[in-house]
């Protein structure tokens, strides 16, 4: 199944939750926010949401800026 994470096409197995994605792609889970198809997906839903074909996911964090 294909999804887009931060603009990159990624192939993931079926029944993958957001939490599984973090493990698969080595993404730290602290101090980040996640947007699913343009809407914020709250942290409380990361464990349960199962990724669907074509989902566009954006994962962001705080970096240096002025």
């Amino acid at each position, binding site marked *: 199944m294909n999804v887009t994470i931060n603009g990159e096409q990624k192939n993931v197995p079926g029944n993958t939750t957001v939490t599984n994605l973090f493990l698969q792609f080595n993404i*730290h889970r602290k101090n*980040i*926010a996640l947007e699913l198809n343009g809407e914020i997906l709250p942290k409380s839903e990361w464990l349960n949401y199962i990724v669907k074909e074509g989902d566009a996911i954006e*994962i962001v*964090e*705080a*970096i*240096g800026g*002025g």
Partner: protein
Amino acid sequence: MDDLLIIDKAKYHSRLLVGTGKYKNHNETAAAIKASGAEIVTVAIRRTNIGQNKNEPNLLDSISPQKYTILPNTAGCYTAGDAIRVCQLSREILEGKNLVKLEVLGDKKTLYPNIDETIIAAEKLIKDNFKIMVYTNDDPIIAKRLEEIGCISVMPLAAPIGSGLGIRNPSNILSIVENASVPIIVDAGVGTASDATIAMELGCSGVLMNTAIAEAKNPVLMASAMKKGVLAGRQAFLAGRMSKKKYASASSPTDGMPD
């Protein structure tokens, strides 16, 4: 005497606000911020690297939200919609904290604010319970307008972002300060410590800077200089400067000179 900076009821001892961009690494960022004495620290919101090393440090590990007031910015946004989205993401990262630095830019060359989009974004964000510290130009009419729509601090540029040109239009900054009932914080343009002092002598409530510290040859030393520059300017403002005279006025008594 406690001379506190009060922004929407939150109290700060330091009137220097600093950014975290353009440093060599997180250690240098942390050391410079410590030396600056700043309590409010700006950050940007960007995509996380995918497939990163698990131990890759996160900025908020070095600049702890428990220790500092994190002020996420909307740098790089050119529309109200993009800026609102970044604010919502920052609130999610920071566990519901709703303080943001709104900046909606006009173009890449000047990084001047797009005022129309800034106002649209500010109005929508305030309705959504955000606390807005807003980057704007040095136009006193716009500054007042941003205050009236509910921004908790108005932050005029003193010169273009990252230019280090100093306080280019002190009369406008003064006019904004004199007309304001929220803290006016000079944001952008400061190049060295005396620039920060001038901003504070004009009566600004604080100064926000990034490049002037990060691009100094010794950022930690410059951070310390900026801390003192801001404090010197503040104390001079509170003390009230002498009036300027056209001719000399002897400092020593003229009476009692020996023959």
